[in-house]
């Protein structure tokens, strides 16, 4: 899976968490939780859905690496199964 495909997955999952958000309007370098008004429960649901789609279990100590869309994609690219 390349970074564009990964980005698509992340945006799809974000769409499940914040269905009223326009994926095209999500700024890639702005804090996701502030942009989309996501709370800790939403963020946990986001991580659970990513794990389900990508089989990547993100440890709690790494949550701070997933602040923006670009940061999420970069982090997940480095941890794809097989990397």
């Amino acid at each position, binding site marked *: 899976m390349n970074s564009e495909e990964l980005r698509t997955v992340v945006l799809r999952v974000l769409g499940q968490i914040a269905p009223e958000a326009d994926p095209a309007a999500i700024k890639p370098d702005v804090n996701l939780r502030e942009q989309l*008004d996501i*709370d800790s429960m939403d963020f946990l649901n986001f991580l659970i859905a990513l794990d389900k789609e990508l089989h990547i*279990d993100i440890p709690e100590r790494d949550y701070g690496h997933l602040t923006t869309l670009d940061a999420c994609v970069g982090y997940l690219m480095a941890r794809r199964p097989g990397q």
Partner: protein
Amino acid sequence: MPQLGADMSAGILTRWRKQVGDVVHRGDIIAEVETEKGNIDVEVFSTGTIEKFLVDQGQRVPVGTVLAWIREEGEPPQAATRAAAMPEAARPAAPAPPAAAPTAVPRQAARAVSIERLPISPSARRLARELGVDATTVTGTGHGGAITREDIERAAAEALARPTAAAPGLAAPAEDRSARIRQTIAAAMSRSKREIPHYYLSTTIDMHRALEWLDQENARRPVAERILYGALVLKAVALALREVPELNATWEEGRVVLKKNIHIGVAIALRQGGLVAPALHDTDQLTVGELMTRLRDLVNRTRSGSLRSSELSDPTITVTSLGEQGVESVYGVIYPPQVAMVGVGKIVERPWCVDGQVVPRRVVTATLSADHRVSDGHRGGLFLAALDRRLQEPDQL
């Protein structure tokens, strides 16, 4: 139609989920109801056979309206005294006659008299003018049929809940709904502040042990089973309530009613605006892991509009948190008929004295808003002390 919140006066029966002749058991979902808080599944509180539906799909009816007749085993058909798919607390005191139209508990007919000659208190009369309510069309529930402020508030909420004809200058439907929600909340919160003599207490809790325990616990759990710190707080609140049970109660008809079960109402913000506080049933009986699973399910169902009626009618106390919005202290307005509300703020790092040394510690401010008719500051203080103590022993939660 069950009362699904202190501020609810009517609901729309959107869909029957059963048919006449079906056998239902206590706890079965019999209908879906639309309220200001979203679509709610209505549960049956008796076991028997559905004999008749009294309300059509799409019909809006006031709280307390008999929705259906359920014939319990051994009863003859068309029993006049059968209550319907309503929770015990919402049943009218008088049985409904078999041919009764689907209206609320029998009301007096509207009286063609001027407001000056109505049995209505001066403050209720003033409120009627403020809210634009025609008091001559309101049925009084006060002593001797007097019209009370609550009657006026209920009439105002019902009027807002009814669809209105289009008129110049009226807001678009979405804005109407938002305005109605706000006015409903306004009426409930105004009533709370007017009738409940609130007192407020706060304490700052060292969360070091609780958060360390949580870090270790979550490091060994897969992501789908991880625990948020809010679940720890809810469990600690539930156990603290066992020590100060008068905070787990309601105020009804001029007296306190202690509740045996602890059903914490969790304040959940809706993505489209608004707030709902459905119950986590038997919060004190759950392990932290179970509580987290139930909490996640409750939040997801609240935001997707799939709550059950008992989840809205059963909270015995409410916990609200604005920590994620950066708020350090929140002093809530108690939801009547509850008698207390717990507020939790943001976890912040502060200098803290430990064994004579000043060290940085993550701390949180917990507050209690409580009804002074039911408890006093001493008992409220004992509750906050118990909450603090519970959070210092997270492995015992």
